[in-house]
């Protein structure tokens, strides 16, 4: 039997079990609700990191604008929640009750047309997937069909992130401006703020994350995944073999956008607001850093990267409020210099061989055999 035909090979299976155990059992049992909610926040970035593994790690397309899609997903969700929180009853002190508070402050007297459909949850869920997906399709088509790639593509995605931030901040009557959309309260009448809701939302998010992991792993294992890798290594050869390179790139970029958008929507639900500070250049680059720290070639590595970097951010800033940014910077430099393949590279180099040896020794009772390489046929 050939291991490659399985959905996960052995090392991935271990990664899957460890992650599932930690997220489903260990963390919920060991953390209080406040910390668990923080983990939920970290995990929203894990969606983005997952998308970047597909798009950057496998497809070789570095996007420095994932914040755009995270933001679009988050804003779609936030618009729905904000409308629900702005019922006439809740907003009776405003000059125009029934519209979001920031519109009232900006002298807008009726709900803008593009806000209307966000009264519907079904529309909102579709919009979370479709708006960023279609936006990525447009950018991707415009760029990849013209064979814009590499650094130029990265710069353009950054420009898009900057433009969207300026747009959101500038159109504050429609978007809440720099304040963002705050004070989100209920989802279809269900209060998202109390502790038990946070726990439920956490589990919903983890289930969604595993669904996305499944999709990413499926894409990786199909021929599509192999073409992505081939494209990264030798784009011209793939093109000469008759494949439309642009279409594959557009697909990878759109998938990454949709994953990021799901993360953004979960962020709005878990944290209770959305603001332009997740859309711009800085958060977009941070998202790439999570992936780099975890390991851009590894699905599980990138997810751990997102969790651990954010955890480090929280704990460093709690312990050293004045100095923590330096500590975080040093951590990044150290990781990139010492372990260019990120945490997953570290795992593959040091931990994995031991596990392999352990398995091998059980089967063969031979401690010295370490020839069972990853992906090699098993007996």
């Amino acid at each position, binding site marked *: 039997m050939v291991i490659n035909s399985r959905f996960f090979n052995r090392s991935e299976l271990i990664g899957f079990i460890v992650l599932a155990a930690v997220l489903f059992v260990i963390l919920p049992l060991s953390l*209080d*609700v*406040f910390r668990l*909610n*923080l983990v939920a*926040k970290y995990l929203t970035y894990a969606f983005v990191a997952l998308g970047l593994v597909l798009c950057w790690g496998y497809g070789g397309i570095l996007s420095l604008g994932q914040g755009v899609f995270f933001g679009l997903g988050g804003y779609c969700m936030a618009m729905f929640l904000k409308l629900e929180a702005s019922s006439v009853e809740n907003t009776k*002190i405003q*000059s125009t009750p029934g519209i979001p508070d*920031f519109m009232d*402050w*900006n*002298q807008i007297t009726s709900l803008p047309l593009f806000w209307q459909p966000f009264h519907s949850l079904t529309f909102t869920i579709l919009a979370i997937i479709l708006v960023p997906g279609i936006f990525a399709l447009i950018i991707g088509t415009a760029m990849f069909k013209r064979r814009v790639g590499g650094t130029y593509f990265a710069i353009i995605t950054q420009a898009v992130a900057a433009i969207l931030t*300026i747009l959101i*901040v*500038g159109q*504050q009557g429609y978007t809440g*401006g*720099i*304040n*963002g959309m*705050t*004070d989100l*309260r209920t989802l279809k009448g269900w209060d998202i*703020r109390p502790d038990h809701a946070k726990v439920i939302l956490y589990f919903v998010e983890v289930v969604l994350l595993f669904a996305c992991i499944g999709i990413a792993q499926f894409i990786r294992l199909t021929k599509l995944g192999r073409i992505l890798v081939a494209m990264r290594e030798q784009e011209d050869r793939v093109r000469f073999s008759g494949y439309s390179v642009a279409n594959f790139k557009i697909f990878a970029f759109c998938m990454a956008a949709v994953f990021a958008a799901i993360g953004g929507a979960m962020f709005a639900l878990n*944290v*209770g*607001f959305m*603001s332009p*500070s*997740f859309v711009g250049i800085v958060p977009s680059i941070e998202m790439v850093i999570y992936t780099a720290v975890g390991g851009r070639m590894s699905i599980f590595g990138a997810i751990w990267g997102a969790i651990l970097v954010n955890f480090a951010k*929280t704990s460093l*800033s*709690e312990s050293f*409020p*004045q100095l*923590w*940014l330096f500590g975080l910077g040093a951590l990044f430099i150290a990781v990139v210099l010492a372990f260019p393949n990120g945490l997953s590279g570290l795992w593959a180099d040091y931990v994995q061989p031991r596990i392999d040896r352990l398995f091998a020794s059980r089967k063969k009772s031979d401690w010295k055999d370490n020839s069972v390489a990853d992906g090699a046929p098993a007996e």
Partner: protein
Amino acid sequence: MSDEANKGLLSPLRRKLLMGMAALPAITMLPRASFAQAPATSAVNSTGLAVTDTEVTVGILHSATGTMAISETGSIEAEKLAIEQINAMGGVLGRKIKFIQEDGASDWPTFAEKAKKLLVNDKVAAIMGCWTSASRKAVLPVMEQYNGMLYYPTFYEGLEQSKNVIYTGQEATQQILAGLNWIAKEKGAKSFFFIGSDYIWPRTSNKIARKHVENVLKGKVVGEEYYPLGNTQFNSVINKIKLTKPDVIFTDVVGGSNVAFYKQLKAAGIDLSKQALLTISVTEDEIDGIGGENIAGAYACMKYFQSLDNPNNKTFVPAFKKMWGEKTVIGDVTQAAYLGPWLWKLTVEKAGSFDIDKIAAASPGIEFKGAPEGYVRIHENHHLWSKTRVGRAKLDGQFELIYETADLVEPDPFPKGYQ
């Protein structure tokens, strides 16, 4: 004359005496505090806050890093000074104040996360914090959900009132109306040009200012322009100013943009000693960056200036400089931040409890006579009664007090006729 001189001699003396007398009970309280004198913890803390027999924990939540750090550092310093002074006097209900400082990192979601951490994890009895409206808006739902108490120092746009917040800065009408009245009367101003940064505070402030100019002063607004935060190109608006020749330029440009704005005004040949300019966004802190020579002659509408000549301020300024260095300047918000811990202490003592609900209920009517800006009082709507003052910027970066309202101005966060 001699009467005046006597008074001048007497008042510092009397103040020293009073201070000495005020310190007496504090001294006698100190050794006993840990034994029987301080009320039992169970009696003053029925909701599980971080209060022990000897200590009470509060949170300080400002940006120590990021773009806002330059503005918020003054607030952090003022709050630490107030806490140290309160502790030196014996603390609150016989308990020393211990503070946990968290960094909002100029990032609104981080503010919300840290506020939640302070309330849920650390169970702080109060939070002194936030600066920008955006950070307050992010923190507000957290304060209301977990029933915390926030002392918010910045002058802001109003349109808000919460059981869980005490606003120690001015809301928009307190800051703007008296200043506009003064400049209309003093300079006979009829035409105004508004320039602001593009976010909620300048927009709301200008909305109130426009209604006041048009409906009350019967003047005219000849221009209203907004620029994104951080903008540094003001040439086009300066040209418009030259064309429209307004009697008064009214500005609420914030942060680093100010530096470019005033330098370009000067470079364009607009002399602020001839062209009246009224700002509601420049304090001593900002002049540090703008440079006194670029802004000398401009009028600022605030409630506090470092140069205020009153006994409270004369002890406050040296104490602040002693703790934080000779070169520090004290702006309006820094002073308002200093009020936070004091108002909280007075409220706790009046309520006889650290419970948030009791503090919220006891807050209206709390008076603080030792405020550097002079006597202040908390209104039923949790804002402060305070005076409006107009100062003229001098070359050395300080303001010279030109005008102050005779009485305290009532806070009115939801002004009728201005919305």
